[in-house]
C-alpha cells in the first residue's frame, strides 16, 4: 500500500525523465541514420570562429583564487546573518546582541588567523 502510494506519486516524474531522455537522444540517433555523412580531416577539426584552434579549452588558474573565493563566501554568509539580526535587534534584546557578538568573535578569530598566515596577500 505504501509502495503503491509512492508509485502513484512519482510515476509522472519517472515518465517525465523518460520523455526528457528520449527528446535529447532522438536528434543524435536520427542524424546517424538520416543524414549523409562524409567526414574528412577539415570537417573533423575543432571549429573556433574561423580561427585555427590555438589553445586547450582547459585553463589552469591560480589556486589563490579559490582561497579568496572561500574567504569571500565565509564573510558573505556572515553579512547574510547580520541583516535579519539587525532588523529584529530591538525585539531580541541583550541576549540576541551578545549571541551575535559571540558569533562575530569566532569569525574574527578565523579572520585574524587567515590574515596572519598571509592568506590575504597576493605575494
Amino acid at each position, binding site marked *: 500500500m505504501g509502495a503503491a502510494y509512492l508509485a502513484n506519486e512519482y510515476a509522472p516524474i519517472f515518465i517525465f525523465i523518460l520523455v526528457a531522455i528520449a527528446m535529447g537522444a532522438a536528434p543524435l540517433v536520427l542524424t546517424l541514420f538520416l543524414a549523409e555523412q562524409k567526414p574528412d580531416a577539415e570537417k573533423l577539426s575543432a571549429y573556433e570562429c574561423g580561427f585555427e584552434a590555438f589553445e586547450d579549452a582547459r585553463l589552469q588558474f591560480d589556486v589563490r583564487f579559490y582561497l579568496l573565493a572561500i574567504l569571500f563566501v565565509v564573510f558573505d554568509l556572515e553579512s547574510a546573518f547580520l541583516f535579519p539580526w539587525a532588523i529584529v535587534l530591538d525585539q531580541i534584546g541583550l*541576549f540576541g546582541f551578545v549571541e551575535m557578538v559571540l558569533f562575530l568573535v569566532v569569525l574574527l578569530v578565523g579572520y585574524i588567523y587567515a590574515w596572519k598566515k598571509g592568506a590575504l596577500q597576493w605575494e
Partner: protein
Amino acid sequence: MANVTFPFPFPDHLITLMPEMIVAIMAMFLLLFDVFVAKGSKTTAYLAIATTVAAGVATWSLQGPDPLVAFYGFFVFDSFAVFSKFLIYVATALGMILSLEYMKNEKHIGEYYVLMLFAMLGMMLMVSSNNFVTMYLGLELMALCVYVLVAYQREVLRANEAALKYFILGALSSGMLLYGITFLYGVTGSFDFAVMGEKLAHAEGDATAAVMLGMVFLIAGLGFKVSMAPFHMWTPDAYEGAPTPVTAFMSVAPKVAGFVIFMRIVADLLPALQHEYQSILIGVAVLTIAVGNLAAIAQRNIKRMLAYSTVGHVGFIMMGLIAGSPAGFSGILVYLSIYLVMTMGVFAVIILMRREGIQGELLDDFAGLSKVRPGYALAMGLFMFSMAGIPFLGGFWAKYVVFMAAVEAGHLYLVLYALLFSAVGAFYYLRVVKYIYFDEERVAFNFIESRPMQATVFVTAVTIVFLGLFPDALFELCRQALVGLV
C-alpha cells in the same frame, strides 16, 4: 535595553556545555597562539593534549546521578554521553601523543592539533545530541576536520588521493543522511529523537513507506561514517593515505561517535520499527563481516589490512545493535573500549617502526622484529591475538559480550556465521605474528626513539592483558553508562 530577559535559565545551560566550551575556546586560542607565538613548536601540541585532559576533568566534575538537558533538549549530558566522551578524549589524546614525533617535520603543524581538537568537539556534540540538528552539526564538524587531517601531507600524492576520495564519498553520504532525515521529519514534524520515536510508533498508511525510505537512507548515511560493508570503499584508501597517527585517530574516535548515534537512534527513534530495521542491519552485518575478514587476507600493507580489519570489527559491533537489548548496547560500549586500546597500541608500534624516509607499514617490514626488539614484538603479538579474539585477552571479551547479547536476542545463526568469520580473521592476524617471530630480518630496522610512544605501547599492552583477566569492572561500567538510555 529595558527587557533583559533570558528565554531560559541560561547559565545552567552553559555549564552543561562546559567541556565543549573549554575545547572550543582552547581550539580557537591555539589557532592564534600558534601563528603568533608558538610558530610550529611543540608547545601547541602539549597545550592541545592538556585541553583533552581539561575537558575530561570538566566532564567528570559535571556528571551526576541525573541526566542534564540543555537548550530545549537539543543537548543531553547523560551517563551514556559521559562514557563515550571519555572514549573520545582518550582516543584524541593518544592520537596527539602518537603524532608528536611522527609529524614533527611537517609544515603547518600547529593547525594539525587544532583540527584534531575541532574534530573532537564535533564528536562531543554528536554523542551528546538528542536531536538531528545537533547531531548533523557535530557530524559535519568532525568530518570536515578529518578530511583535512587525512590530506595533511599534501605533497604526498597518495594522501591527496585518499583525502579526495574520502571527501567526495563523505559529502555524498552526508547528502544521503540528510535526505533520510527529511523523510522522517516529514512524517513526524520534529527533529527531536524522543518526539520522533513517539510519532513513528503511530505512523500508518502512506506514512510507513516514507518512514522506510527515510530509515534506509539514514542507515546508509551513518553506515558510511562507521564503514559498514557496502559503504566501506573509502576505508582502505583513506587509512593508507592518511598519516599513520591520523589513521589511528580516525579508526577509533569517529567509530565511537558513529555507533553512539546509532544506539541513540535505535533506542529512541526506531523501537516501534524493530523488525524493519533489524532485517536491514542483519543483511548489512552479514556483508560487513564477510568483506572485512576476507579482503584483509589479501593485503600486504598493514594499514590496509587494519582498515579491512576495522570493517570486520564494525560488523561484529553491529551484532550488538541487532540485538537491540541493554546487553547488546553495553556490549557495544565494551567492544568500543577494548577496540580503542588494541587499535591505538597497534598503530603505536607501526609508527615506532618508521625508518629513514620509508614507513614500516608493509607486512614484510615486520619480519624478524622479535630478535631486534622483543618488547615491541611481544606487544604486537598480544594486540594481534587480542584482535583475533583469542581467549583471555581483551578482544575475546569484546566479542563474547556482543555475541552473547545476539544469542539472547535469538540470532543464533548470525552468531555462528560471525564465529566462522572470526576464525577466518584469526588467519591474517596470526600471519603478522608469524612474520614477527619466525621470519628473518630483511631490512635493517630504524626505530623512532620516543618515550611517550613507548609508554603508549606499554600501557595499551598491559591494559589489554588486564582487561582479559579482569573484564568485570569494564562490564559493570558499561552497564552503568546505559542507565537512562534503555
